[in-house]
């Protein structure tokens, strides 16, 4: 529990920042609802762009290691993300990669299936709604009569936070469950003994599949893969046994099996358990054994029923995977 006013312990200094993110992680902090009041009772929020007007120069002015905990969400996509990551690293005692993007690259990390040129070409030239006869592309520097304008440089690759700076802990999730955040925050605030550096916290050791209440058997024999809307889910049999790809067995528990409880297969946002370094590879390997075919042609036919396999198996983990990116 957060210390009350009688506790002489000084309040923690807390920062929340977003890199390449959708904003969901920041909302998950707000989703602590009334517990947010406990958090602010125990901690001063010194930097949180979504909620507070504090400038980068204010952060630059802070002494090194003066922030106790930074929850850094979002991937590293451009020079601004990287700069602030490095800045916050030097100002922070405990840097937490918060959410799947900071942890594994997340949804923005799927951009590693293409490259900067591919993205710019699509967005600034080819997209149906683009009118750009001069093929103008974003410039990091533009001279206007008031002076030089600068915008961050977009990188060719998307990186995870710990590919750019040293990270103390990882909290997975897209977004992390607010309950898990409260548990972690409470542990830090009460001075509980913290796990070893580099640990994944706010999540379980075992997989989502382990917690799942659906009926499981060895009957994983697949003739055709279905997307969830293509089948009449019986609401009780393992999704894989119904031909729907579920990432549950290759994904850490901690979310409370929320997607499957809502009759939707697990998408893998909590990342792999410690025993599976590359969940996309693990799951593809597992799925490969379930295909029920007698000929190579039949195997191809069945695999063709998996829509967007790269995006499916590596939805949250591409930059952190063994693949890292597509070689272009």
């Amino acid at each position, binding site marked *: 529990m957060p210390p009350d006013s009688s506790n002489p312990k000084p309040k923690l200094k807390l920062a929340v920042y977003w890199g390449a993110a959708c904003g969901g992680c920041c909302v998950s902090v707000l989703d602590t609802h009334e517990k947010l009041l406990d958090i602010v009772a125990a901690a001063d929020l010194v930097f949180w762009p979504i909620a507070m007007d504090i400038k980068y120069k204010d952060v630059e002015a802070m002494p090194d290691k003066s922030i106790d905990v930074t929850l850094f969400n979002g991937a590293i996509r451009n020079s601004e993300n990287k700069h602030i990551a490095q800045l916050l690293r030097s100002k922070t005692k405990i840097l937490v990669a918060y959410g799947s993007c900071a942890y594994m690259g997340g949804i923005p990390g799927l951009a590693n299936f293409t490259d900067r040129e591919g993205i710019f070409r699509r967005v600034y030239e080819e997209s149906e709604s683009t009118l750009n006869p001069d093929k103008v592309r974003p410039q990091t520097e533009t001279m206007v009569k008031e002076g030089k304008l600068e915008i961050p440089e977009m990188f060719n690759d998307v990186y995870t936070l710990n590919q750019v700076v040293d990270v103390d802990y990882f909290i997975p999730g897209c977004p992390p469950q607010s309950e898990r955040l409260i548990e972690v925050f409470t542990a830090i605030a009460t001075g509980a003994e913290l796990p070893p550096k580099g640990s994944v916290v706010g999540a379980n*050791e*075992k*997989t*989502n*599949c*382990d917690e*799942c209440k659906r009926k*499981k*058997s*060895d009957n*994983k*024999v697949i003739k055709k893969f279905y997307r969830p809307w293509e089948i009449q889910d019986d609401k009780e049999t*393992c999704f*894989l046994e119904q031909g729907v790809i579920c990432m*549950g*067995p*290759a994904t850490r528990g901690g979310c409370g099996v929320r997607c499957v409880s809502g009759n939707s297969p697990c998408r893998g946002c909590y990342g*792999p*358990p*410690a*025993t*599976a*370094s590359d*969940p996309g590879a*693990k*799951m593809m*390997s*597992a799925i*490969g*054994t*379930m295909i029920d075919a007698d000929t190579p042609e039949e195997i191809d036919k069945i695999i063709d029923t998996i829509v967007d396999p790269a995006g499916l198996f590596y939805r949250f983990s591409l930059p952190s995977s*063994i693949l890292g990116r597509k*070689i272009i």
Partner: protein
Amino acid sequence: MEEPRIGVYICHCGTNIAKMVDVEAVAAEVGKLPNVVLAKTYKYMCSDPGQELIIKDIRGHRLNRVIVAACSPRIHELTFRTAVEKAGINPYLFEMANIREQDSWVHTDRVEATAKAIDLVIAAIHRVRYHEPLAKRSVNVDPATLIIGGGISGMVAALEIANAGKKVYLIEKSDHLGGHVARFDLTFPHLSSAKQMIRPILQRVENHPNIDVFKKSVIKNVTGYIGNFKAVVENGVPDPLELTFGNIIAATGLKPFDPSKIEEYGYGKFPDVVTSMEFEEMLSAGKVMTRYGKEPRNIAIIHCVGSRSKKYHEYCSRTCCMVALKFVNQIRAGLPDCNIFEIYADMRAYGKGCEEFYAESTHRQIIFLMFDQQEKLPLIKEAERNDECNMLIELDEKLSGETVEIPADMVVLMVNMEAHEDVKEVVHAIGVSLCGNQFFIEKHPKLDPVATTTGGVYIVGTCQGPKDIPDSVAQARAAAARILATIAQGSVAVEVTTASVNEAMCCGCQTCIRVCPYSAVSYNEEKKSSEVNEVLCKGCGTCGSACPSGAISTKHFTDRQILAEIEGIMSMSYKEI
């Protein structure tokens, strides 16, 4: 983990490696790497002085990891594991880099081959640091043996084992022992009597105190593993008998090809077109006659029926050419005036005394006619009323290049020998694989021809592929010797590099259950976890790669070890991607 102290040895393999790989350069390069205490080259690492070198260095330099870069681990991994064990290191702390088969033998550029050798050794260096010591394991062997099939192979194996004082259960699905050989009249190439040969064997098997013969019986529900199998014998009695045994010999034989599938030969349509097995029975009975009870004046023998053909079976049945020559000798002896036509595709007369037998047979006034079975098969037609024979065989004679018509009162089809259809049930029961032609697959085609990949299961005789009596008997005796050796030992070493389940991480998805080819993985409902029976497990790694949670790993082939190997091999040449 103790700090690795790695010794690396690069083998010249005479000139096999050294002529294409600069072994000194490899040693110099890998010698610079962290944890590599020494890197040496030697002319023949597998020789006694080569092994001594390793043993001396382990003791002198306190090495705790050893790498030998030489030939394929299939050849000498065991040699070096034994050597390091002698020096007091666990044999699994050894790793082999194959720079011969995978490098010097297949490349022609010495510079690039040397670079590749360096990469392969670096991969081994990265891997070996993650190696863990593994303990040897063994299981006791039940001295009884189950033999499936009472043909010549099964009987010979049974006698060999029973004569050594060990129990044999011999299962035969028909009502008599002897298999195909019991139906033969004479054997090739000496034209000696098959019956005289097999009768004493039959009697000895039937009366042997150590052999229990089960006729009209099939084996069901085989469970267990090497040394400790269990099965049920089903033979119609209400209480099926349960047997326990330590080893299995499959001697299930084969069956003749059904030639009615080949339209040109009119088998089934012409009553005097008979198969070689049917003709064998006529000879046995001493009555070679047409359907109308007449002595045939013209007999044609057609070879390769269903053999060596893309349409039926691509393989050669191996024995039919010699059986055909045996037939012509028998026909000539019994019907001195009969015209005999040998219609062959190629004459295959390998085997002791067989070429001589062929040469002799050509003096029996036989007309040899060759056909090209890839092009056009001979066509059997009904003869006209005024022809002095029952049938005519139209044939493109290959050597003369002419189309000829051959008269025939009887045609003998030398049918292919093919696998039994019901072999799949036996296969499923005993866990042996089949080749594309549905014959059982041996463990190694050259070096381990009677064992299978399932420990304690052996294959002998024609269930492994067509063969003649001497080859079948040799296999039967070989399998018996192998089994007697394990019985004499009392226990047998089982695979150490097995899969194991981290029960704390298993989520019970059961992806692993069906993928195991050895039925070694099962699901424990109580623990909610999969389990690997380490005695059944062969360490193939299939369950480990199928496990999406990373809860199963195969000892000596962990993800960490394999990734380290990949990281090692990618660390030099492919740095820039």
